[in-house]
């Protein structure tokens, strides 16, 4: 396996004014679109199927297959919705991509909309990133001015409008059905499935929801072909992927590499562990993916490899923690996040995160007991797979994996408590 960077999605990022139309057009920009408009929509769906492209939003669902679920000739409007909510802790790839190369996303949107016969596309961007939203809006304006958007795009007879919509700061609105509700102006809470967005999505019409990175991959596939795409990555997880590395490394940032790269290789690219302090634990794809440890340095980071090792590829948000970090403390912080972000719709996640947070906070204050550890695990068991959406499942990942690999750290907190209580007891007795 190569440990070389393969700049595909990131290849223009360092060019001067990379976000402008001029730079983009000079560097192959909108070439994929011209090619795509010459093809039949169904040919494009087949092409993306053949490329093996899988969703980059976390779940890894085959993209071409998702598009093919859109009913054709149903007389309803079709919609493409881009998930640019990027809320998974540690994830930092979609926003840099939209900052550095917004036109590549727009080009992907136009090709995808053409393929699924949509004439309206919404890009739902995390509300906090104002600068990015402005840049994206400016790019959309440029695209309209150049005839890449609007009526009769490049004389093809195909029309498309793109709207950039700012979210209001809720992690749950990255979940695709909550996103759709939010986009419709409702309270962002996940919808009951079925019906799935492919048949009843935005305004109850057939809708494709895809991640920014997924859709940005499309123009490259159109230009390079499916074989070229498959030459990168693995059989079941082909293509390049942006790994966002954060934490205790020398050079945190976005590293684009073929799927299947290992942390060991990534660490090399990122200059190794910061100040040489050894690695203790890390997430392969955000906090919702169970923790890995130094044992997992050679696990191939593709969908299959991460799963086989007991975690998930998630958003390839690699958060790296060195030995100075207490696992219970980190787990407590993550759990506070999930408690704060739980949408409240279902009992297990709403009440469970509330409870877990308090137990962990108490343990970190040194007031835990060994029974708390068993309770944590049992509460997690009552949340995992019982919640309405995957947020609840993700919420228990840090806890169960943290206890699995670092139970001794949790126990140590409890022992200290037991000693303290004993001392307090003795102090009380002598008073």
């Amino acid at each position, binding site marked *: 396996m190569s440990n070389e960077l393969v700049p595909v999605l990131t290849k223009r990022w360092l060019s001067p004014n990379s976000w402008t139309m001029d730079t983009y057009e000079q560097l192959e920009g909108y070439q994929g679109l011209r090619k795509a408009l010459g093809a039949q929509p169904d040919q494009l769906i087949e092409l993306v199927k053949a490329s093996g492209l899988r969703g980059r939003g976390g779940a890894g669902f085959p993209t071409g297959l998702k598009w093919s679920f859109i009913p054709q000739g149903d007389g309803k409007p079709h919609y493409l919705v881009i998930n640019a909510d990027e809320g998974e802790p540690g994830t930092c790839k979609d926003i840099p991509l939209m900052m550095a190369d917004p036109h590549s996303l727009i080009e992907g949107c136009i090709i995808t909309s053409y393929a699924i016969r949509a004439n309206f596309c919404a890009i739902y961007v995390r509300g906090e990133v104002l600068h990015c939203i402005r840049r994206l809006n400016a790019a959309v304006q440029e695209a309209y001015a150049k005839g890449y958007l609007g009526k009769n795009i490049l004389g093809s007879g195909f029309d498309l409008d793109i709207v950039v919509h700012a979210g209001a700061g809720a992690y749950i609105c990255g979940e695709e059905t909550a996103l759709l509700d939010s986009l419709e102006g409702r309270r962002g809470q996940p919808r009951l499935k079925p019906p799935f967005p492919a048949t009843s999505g935005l305004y109850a019409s057939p809708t494709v929801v895809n991640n920014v990175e997924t859709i940005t991959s499309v123009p490259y596939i159109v230009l390079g072909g499916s074989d070229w795409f498959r030459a990168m990555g693995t059989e079941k997880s082909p293509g390049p992927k942006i790994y966002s590395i954060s934490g205790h490394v020398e050079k945190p940032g976005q590293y684009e590499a073929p799927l299947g790269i290992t942390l060991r290789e990534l660490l090399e690219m990122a200059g190794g562990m910061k100040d040489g302090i050894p690695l203790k634990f890390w997430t392969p794809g955000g906090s919702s993916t169970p923790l890995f440890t130094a044992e997992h340095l050679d696990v191939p980071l593709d969908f299959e490899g991460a799963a086989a090792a007991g975690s998930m590829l998630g958003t390839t948000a690699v958060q790296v923690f060195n030995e100075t970090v207490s696992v219970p403390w980190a787990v407590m912080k993550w759990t506070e996040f999930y408690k704060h*972000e739980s949408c*409240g*719709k279902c009992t297990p996640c709403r009440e*469970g995160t*509330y409870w877990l947070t308090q137990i962990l906070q108490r343990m970190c204050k040194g007031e835990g007991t060994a029974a708390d550890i068993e309770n944590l695990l049992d509460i997690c068991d009552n949340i995992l797979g*019982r919640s309405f959406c995957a947020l609840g499942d993700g919420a228990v990942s840090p806890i169960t994996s943290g206890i699995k690999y670092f139970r001794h750290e949790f126990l140590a907190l409890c022992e200290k408590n037991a000693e303290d209580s004993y001392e307090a007891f003795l102090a009380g007795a002598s008073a």
Partner: protein
Amino acid sequence: MTLAADKNTDIVVPDGHVKLTIDGAEVVAPKGELLIRTAERLGTVIPRFCDHPLLEPAGACRQCLVEVEMGGRPMPKPQASCTLTVADGMVVKTQLTSPVADKAQAGVMELLLINHPLDCPICDKGGECPLQNQALKHGRTDSRFTETKRTFPKPIAVSSQVLLDRERCVLCQRCTRFSEQIAGDPFIELLERGSQQQIGTAQDQPFQSYFSGNTIQICPVGALTSAAYRFRSRPFDLVSTPSVCEHCAGGCATRTDWRRGKITRRLAAEDPQVNEEWICDKGRFAFTYTTEPDRLLRPRVRDAKTGELRDASWTEALRVAAEGLTKAKEAGGVGVLPGGRLTVEDAYAYSKFARVALGTNDIDYRNRPSSAEELAFLGSTVSGTNPEHGVTYGDIEKAPAVLLIALEPEEEAPGVFLRLRKGNRKHGNRVFHMGQWTTPAVVKTNGTLIPCLPGEEADMLGRLPSEVDELLRRPDAVILLGERAAEITGLFSTARELAAQTGAKLAWIPRRAGELAAIEAGALPTMLPGGRPVTDSVARAEVELAWGLETGTLPTAEGRDLAGILGAVANGRLAGLVIGSVDVHDLPNPELAERALDSGVFVVSLDLRESSVTRRADVVLPVAAISEKAGTYINWEGRRRPFPVVITGTNRLPDCRVLDTLAVEMDADLFTQTPAAAMADLGRLGHHTGNRIPAPSVDAGRPNRPGQRHAVLATWHQLIDHGSMQDGEPHLAGTARPAVARLSVDTAKAFGVADAALITVGTDRGSVTLLAEFADLPEGVVWLPSNSTPATVRTSLGAGHGALVTVTTAANGAAS
């Protein structure tokens, strides 16, 4: 193959059904059925909170998790049985056979309780609480939760009658889904998120729901409580009696809970054909009027010396009444005004009393604006209405198109409104409202307004948009007429014609609960019981035979109607009146009624409470309230709605009993000693199969046209208003829609009141002053609520729907 398997293959799966296994038992279920219901039919109750059969599934509480296997492959996670539909070959294991499901359910239950205050001992729901019951059945005996519970200030008043305790709320969203889906009201909403998620009032939208009480009933915990019932009793101390609502012609099934002779609350009962599981807030909360201080408890007679009413014994009062009526009968005759709120049994007693004891057809139950055309319509079209042949709630729900004329369903027939809304949501019905402005009901039924001048409705039927005409020709289309049809000349006739032309079914939905019963009982000047024309000798002979009268005893000529009776009294041609529960202010011409009552006529009044009539009566006979007697309403569908006595042992007498005894004093036998006897006596008459009263044939009237000096008045009642049957319930009154006068901006400009906050609508009789609100009324039309101001439209203006009125800026700035 095993024997058992052999046997199993015998199960026949009808078309549109699937076969699945639940806890090892094979079961056939209709496609699309939710698993939780299939299990329930098998006798396995899966615990639940958010699930409600009449609401769309939410899957929010996660209490109903079960294990499911499809095509031999177990689904990776336990599934919510309230959101999963049955499928062929599905294998389901509930808590009874699956440890996984059992643990999942126990886990959810524990989580639901960690933040619950567990204040059952002071909670209204205690004893009938799904959370309490299911926690006892499926929960842990102790809690592992030792942390800090989430607290909220409590309670908060969602409205004057609904109080919310957010700590008890399990966030099942039943209340919000009810408001959104069933009622369509911006009432309550989910706010905030995570463990701070809570129910709250909708932002920027004022509370406005006539159905809010249903949320209290379907709340699976004590989070929503009623201001009226809060802390009043424990459910297990109450006696629950089935009852029927007396407030409109809907006939909703209710349940009345009471103890120690007092009603503590009223709830919706389940009747899928009529009200499903919902009632309006008036039906739920308006029951205190029977215990107001002015309730009549003893008979009264006017003292010969003082001229004042004084208490009297039943014996004396009945004797004085009988003597006075006998005299009046001889001195010119007695008219009978039973009122529109009676049961069939009571109405029948009035009808028979008029004919047998008073020898007259001068009887008219219609204590509201009415017309001769209407009388012909009631005889020809309404009498004999029944759910087998007529329009039903179900028909309204399934109709491809419904045209409402002169009927404001949410205000005048709330149950019908809910069905219209359901029909539109579930089946995409088209609803057309012929009226004057885009009322909330137009919006919430997703309907289309066909605007016209008040009084122009009949004429408009001849000029319907072609789309409407076309839709009415579809099979099962429905046309509905309301109470104020009687104020619109030619409407009954043209509506009948339209129905005949298009094939649409036609129904009349009056406002009051007793209307159809009174028609059936013959409490009208032209009709004997069963719609038998009084002028028809065969019909009369039938009645005479059944009543044991000599042939030729029954009066042969049509009697006087309401206006005729009052007119005849006023000018001395009638010498006596027997009046049931009638409020002078409800009558089309209250002034005439007052003049008549003050004319020295001998008045016997049968009433519940003191009123403008009892105060003028010579004899007042107190009668039983609805909860103190048995009886039968007939709702607008013609469906019989029998109910038993709720509060037993009050010794209060129903009208039919009082009249029976009074008749005996006058040497006549009614055989209506009890409601059962009255019903049996009516039953002996059997169905009328002979001639009916001919249908009306009146040309569409010319409406009053607005001019420079006059506007045209549109008016109808709001559901919650100053009606005396809502007395004594301030919490309900607090939810009334504000009383405002409505007119368009252009009309306001034309009358020079565009900048006025308060406007005065007047006639030469008087005026009503109200806050003005702009709405899309036709030019020159002003709308007033009929009875939402101290000065009612009838009393103050002496006018009704379609009358000419003046519109001016209020003189002194005070609303009247």
